[in-house]
């Protein structure tokens, strides 16, 4: 009896220690893709760079019009062939890489133009590559690298130069310049889009030969900093106005942008609807379109002749008004609206604001919800409600601030109790009083209908056998919802258990970079996934659901998966609605090593491996070398149980390059291996 209790305590103790150690990322991580897209109708070979990519079994796309075949995989590189159907929807598609030990999501851009890859050396104007319009160039920009492209332009010609980098999940923060033949900079762009990508639309005052210079911003760059450069005179859609329509309606809208006089084909989403171009000129095409009655409300992409940048177009359930002609600019004479309604407008001039008057017959709770940044526009909206005497009753700028640490929400969602029957004025403007013809907004004004949404913070998880794995879920309360929400998970793999978690109606605080307190736009909860030691290894789509009761009404919602911005450089809903989870084994030890090591013949090199013990760590870890490389040796090192690093000395007696890996043993048993390290030899 005594012995059994003691053993139980030991097991309990081991489990506690085990549970405290966070597992380092051993699931696949994709840090670069090249090329980061392809032309529809083509079959191309792509290379994905990253870590933990060994044992990649497949690459999946949500759209059946994209099919991938894995050609090879090692810890750092996966090569695959991608077949893009001729009618695949242009734009961004989610790419999911699946391995035995986890999955990772990435972006893949489908374009309609003939693509080329840049070829170095092109870092000098004299070695500039020729651009033939329309051009789509896939390139890489390393630190200090400059890519020069030469082209000719006619007098008065409008050319667009648009770089798809960070918006496509790349690490490349690029800048571009147009230079004349003498090298004089005519135009420059560093950040145009909200994700650092540059764009120049330039009207050439005279015919001639010009250069486009592309580099990392301040010469930054990396081996996986890829970009897709579009250049040419093809139609380029900036926005649609109105930027949405009601289900089942026939809508006439203007597509604004550049070179639109050549626009012929306007398509909503993946063929959901097709528009007819009624008239067109260089900066605007007028389009008529029938929105299907059964179209799901939400944001779609509007494609104009397969342009690089589709314009957002939202299908709603409400009446819509358009005030882009400036008729809502007067505070004294606001545009009357009847709730519920969606107003479509553009803050086209600095300091401009649009005003709407709404009349209510009794006190009621209303919501003003703006959409701008969520549609990828640069407008940073701010909404205000005034009473009929012009007194400001309430305002909202950002539901949650952007600190770079947590996903932000800069589009207002103002819920306000109108105190009595009467006239009220709603105002929307840019928070920084800016204005530009591209500063689009959609403002939904309606009676509040309390509700909530659930989102996972991330699109994939690795669930380790024998462990409790936390998964983050955020509950966002909308339109005045103020009650707890119970969240649970469904479609669980065999051997996995989850207890429901209550999300209290309090926004979750977090600490900013300077120690200040911020609040999320919702409540983060950790849902604990308990995985049996003998649970089958598997890959499954897990569905989260939530239920709450507010003001006597029960609401139940299903979660959507959301990108984790650091991984994908974007906040928003993923194409795949559910989170994909892999049940896998955690190794006994993770030995984190650099990808390469430079050595000289007969020389020594130091290497530090970061050690994470996941076996309980009661005994010393012996680290040895495993290699087939000639002349490479290392004295085994014993790492004490509490240590998190192993300082190693390697010796090379030959000059041939080769790979090695580190092996971790406890009491003679292998509990983990590192990734291979490539030895670069210097003579």
């Amino acid at each position, binding site marked *: 009896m005594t012995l059994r209790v003691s053993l139980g305590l030991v097991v309990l103790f081991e489990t506690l220690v085990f549970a405290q150690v966070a597992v380092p990322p051993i699931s696949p991580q994709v840090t670069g893709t090249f090329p980061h897209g392809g032309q529809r109708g083509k079959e191309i070979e792509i290379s994905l760079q990253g870590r933990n990519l060994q044992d990649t079994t497949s690459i999946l796309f949500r759209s059946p019009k994209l099919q991938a075949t894995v050609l090879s995989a090692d810890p750092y590189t996966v090569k695959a062939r991608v077949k893009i159907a001729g009618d695949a929807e242009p734009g961004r598609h989610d790419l999911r890489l699946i391995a035995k030990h986890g999955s990772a999501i990435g972006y893949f851009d489908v374009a309609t133009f003939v693509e080329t890859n840049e070829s170095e050396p092109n870092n000098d104007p004299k070695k500039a590559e020729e651009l033939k319009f329309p051009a789509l160039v896939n390139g890489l920009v390393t630190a200090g690298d400059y890519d020069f492209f030469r082209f000719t332009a006619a007098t008065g010609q409008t050319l667009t130069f648009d770089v798809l980098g960070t918006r496509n999940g790349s690490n490349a923060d690029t800048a571009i310049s147009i230079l004349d033949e003498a090298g004089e900079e005519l135009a420059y762009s560093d950040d145009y889009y909200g994700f650092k990508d540059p764009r120049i639309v330039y009207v050439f005052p005279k015919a001639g030969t010009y250069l486009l210079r592309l580099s990392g911003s301040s010469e930054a760059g990396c081996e996986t900093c890829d970009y897709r450069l579009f250049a040419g005179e093809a139609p380029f859609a900036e926005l649609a106005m109105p930027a949405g329509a009601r289900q089942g309606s026939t809508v006439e809208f203007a597509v604004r942008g550049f070179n639109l006089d050549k626009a012929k084909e306007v398509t909503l989403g993946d063929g959901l609807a097709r528009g007819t171009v009624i008239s067109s000129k260089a900066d605007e095409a007028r389009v008529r379109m029938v929105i299907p009655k059964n179209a799901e409300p939400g944001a779609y992409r509007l494609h104009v002749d397969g342009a690089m940048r589709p314009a957002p177009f939202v299908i709603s359930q409400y009446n819509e008004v358009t005030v882009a002609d400036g008729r809502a600019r007067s505070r004294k004479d606001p545009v009357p609206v009847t709730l519920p309604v969606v107003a479509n407008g553009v803050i086209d001039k600095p300091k401009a604001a649009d005003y709407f008057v709404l009349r209510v017959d009794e006190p009621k709770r209303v919501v003003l919800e703006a959409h701008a940044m969520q549609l990828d526009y*640069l407008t*940073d909206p701010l909404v205000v409600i005034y009473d009929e005497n012009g007194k400001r009753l309430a305002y909202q700028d950002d539901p949650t*601030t*952007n600190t770079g640490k947590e996903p932000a929400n800069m589009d207002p969602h103002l819920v306000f109790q109108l105190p009595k029957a009467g006239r009220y004025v709603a105002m929307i403007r840019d928070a*920084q009083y800016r204005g530009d013809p*591209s500063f689009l907004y959609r403002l939904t004004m309606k009676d509040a209908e309390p509700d909530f949404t659930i989102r996972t913070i991330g699109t994939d998880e690795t669930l380790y056998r024998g462990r409790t794995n936390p998964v983050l879920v955020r509950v966002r309360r909308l339109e005045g919802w103020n009650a707890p929400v119970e969240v649970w998970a469904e479609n669980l793999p065999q051997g996995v258990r989850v207890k429901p978690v209550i999300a209290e109606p309090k926004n979750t605080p977090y600490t900013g970079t300077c120690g200040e307190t911020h609040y999320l736009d919702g409540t983060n909860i950790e849902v604990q996934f308990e995985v049996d030691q003998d649970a089958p290894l598997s890959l499954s789509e897990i569905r989260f659901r939530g239920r709450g009761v507010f003001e006597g009404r029960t609401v139940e919602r299903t979660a959507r998966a959301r990108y984790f*911005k650091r991984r994908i450089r974007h906040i928003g809903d993923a194409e795949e609605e559910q989170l994909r989870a892999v049940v896998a084994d955690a190794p006994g030890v993770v030995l984190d090593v650099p990808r390469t090591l430079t050595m000289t013949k007969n020389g020594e090199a130091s290497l530090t491996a970061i050690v994470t013990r996941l076996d309980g760590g009661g005994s010393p870890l012996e680290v040895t070398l495993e290699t087939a490389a000639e002349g490479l040796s290392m004295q085994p090192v014993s790492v004490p149980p509490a240590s998190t690093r192993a300082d190693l000395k390697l010796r090379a007696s030959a000059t041939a390059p080769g790979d090695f890996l580190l092996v971790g043993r406890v009491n003679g048993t292998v509990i983990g291996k590192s990734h291979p390290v490539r030895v670069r030899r210097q003579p």
Partner: protein
Amino acid sequence: MKGLAILAPALCFGAQLSILPPAIQLNGTDATQTFLVSYTDDAGYEHDVTSECVTSNLARASMKKVTVKCRGLQASVPVVVKASARPPGVSFVNDVSPIFTMSGCAGANCHGSIRGQRGFKLSLFGNDPKLDYEAIMGGDHKRVNLKEPGKSLLLTKPTTETPHGGGFRFAPDSLQYRTLFDWVQQGGSYDTNDGVRITELNVYPEERVLLGADKTQQLVAIAKYSDGSVRDVTRLVQYSSNSPDTVQVDAKGMIKALQSGETSIMVRTMGKAVAARILVASGATAKDYPNVARFNYVDEHIFTKLRRLNIRPSELADDGQFLRRAYLDNLGLLPTEAESRSFLDSTDSQKRSKLVDNLLERREFADVWALKFTELFRAGTREAGAKGARIVYDYVRQSFRENKPYDRFVRELLLSQGSHSFPNSSIAGLRQSPTSFYNVSFDSNAPDHATNVSQLFLGVRLECAKCHNHPWEKYTQDDFYGFAAFFARVGIKEVYENDENATQYMEEGVVEHPKKKQRMDPKFLDGPSIKDQEDADIREALSDWLASPKNPFFARTIVNRVWKHYMGRGFVEEVDDFRVTNPPTHPALLDALAEDFIAHKFDMRHLIRTILNSRAYQLSAIPNDSNRSEVLNYSHFRIRRLQAETLVDAMSEVTGVAEKFAGYPLGTRAMQVYAGGGGYMLSSFGRLSRDIICERDSQPDMAQTMHMISGSTIQNKVNKTKLDLASTDDILLDRVFLTSLVRKPTDAERSAVMEKIKTGSDRKAVYQDLLWAILNSKEFLYQH
């Protein structure tokens, strides 16, 4: 034109007698007033003849004026006698407290320091008499002995009867001692009427030219009080000379000239300060003083003053010197060989002014000012980073290229908001918006903005008033936080997913007085408070006031900056430190340039053109016997080391080897390196780190010398220099000298080089050595 008016009549009229102050007010029957009598000689110099004169009407209580006779001349001054509203006896505020300042007790290095001295803390220069009173009477260590006044520490310390770390301050038979003794004896009480304070302090004469060393002049100080009374405080103020080697002053206000030069005598009491400007001319008027031609009104001021000081200006710079100077100052570049030849060969009498017009239209002209302002705004530091710096740089550059009126430029800066990372060319509505202007530091806040804006655009350094009432200036903490309240709603937020920030005028925001804990209303400097409006941007009102033609600070501050850029020294130094105790050297010219600038709608090119077309700018740097040591009056061109960027770019031009700056494409000139950094050579030659607002230091040092001798920059450029060795030596030599020094080689220089070549030295190596020598010569390294 005030200063010129002071100087000009003296040159235009014959001898005369005058009295200062120009009017006398006596409050109370026992009131007294010192006055000065000045005799102006035929040459226009004024002499203190007070002691020589005979005065009438002095004893009559009903007198309406005082008349003096002297040297056969007569002058009068009106006198008004008013009843005194003051209670009898010694006032702590108006009699006792000033003694602490005049005796040096309330100075920043004594009891007026932030922590006081040995447990005794007075307000700095008597700006808070109530605090002084409490320091004397409060606590366990009273400094007065009401039963035996003579044993009060207040008296035994300054007389050193009791050991005193501050030493001897005044004697037992002095006026100060008597006043303090009487105050203690009458009960050591604080004034019942605390509200009567000095509102204005004046000193006479405000300006005086003393003709030669040993000349003396009495100063008279007069205080005006909040109850309307006036008092002679000549013996109650503290005097100090800004240049004691030039002019000394004693405790009674008597000044004495020691050597030629110029200085200000500071007069301080009760938190007030004024300055008397004293110029010492070099002996008698020179009979052979040259008739100096004046090109414009700038020269009227400059040469009139030089004439008064008996300083002969240098000759006009020759064409080569002028050409080089004008290029370097305006473009940061040297003229090309062709440009030099064209200018030097031209016989056009208007070629200098035509050159000026041409340079101001060049694109590189805007680069020079873009970098200057980008640096002043400290753009690119911290959060805003290089992207933010580029936006500001591009904005300033474009502003100068289109010659945007300076008032509009500043207005746009003040009202700027939006993302710090979007280049102006990207978004039409945001074109040229210098959005990171407010994002100087990571935690920039309203007090920081107030400090920066006042220093940058008003030439007023307010930061002292952030912590305490400003010792000399009129600005109090109320003024500071009132001014800061204009920026209460200027916030920083991160907008886009690009890790960069934006400036936003927030819906709400307050500035609180740190001591009074009260919300401050926005208040203009020297002006009223206004109410912040919910739906308005209060910075609109600020910019209307700040960039107004009526703002006395605004135009003068930028004029002073521009003047310094071209002339090497501001009328006021430091250029952003305008205050009573730091008066300009040429107030009338400063005002005239400012008025002209305003009249031309804040046209920067007009201002610069006016300066460049003046003879003063075009003077030679070679001094004469008369002006060799003169440094304040622009009697010769002030030589100065080339600005770091100009030097590097000039070296690149001369050698044909471009410099590569990290983060910038090859071909970027140093003047276009908009963010901080730029490499070792730039920083060692004075490129600023942008931590604080300041002008460049153009002083040479050993690190610079070593870098020019053997540093990587010069080695790389000389070794890789592109020489057309197919050319003849005559052509090559001319080219090297013209491109670097804007002149042809002298015969001696030509011979020395040819000698080397003839003796068999490697020809390329000879030219490389020549380049090295030229680049290391003062003639190359200096603007002259």
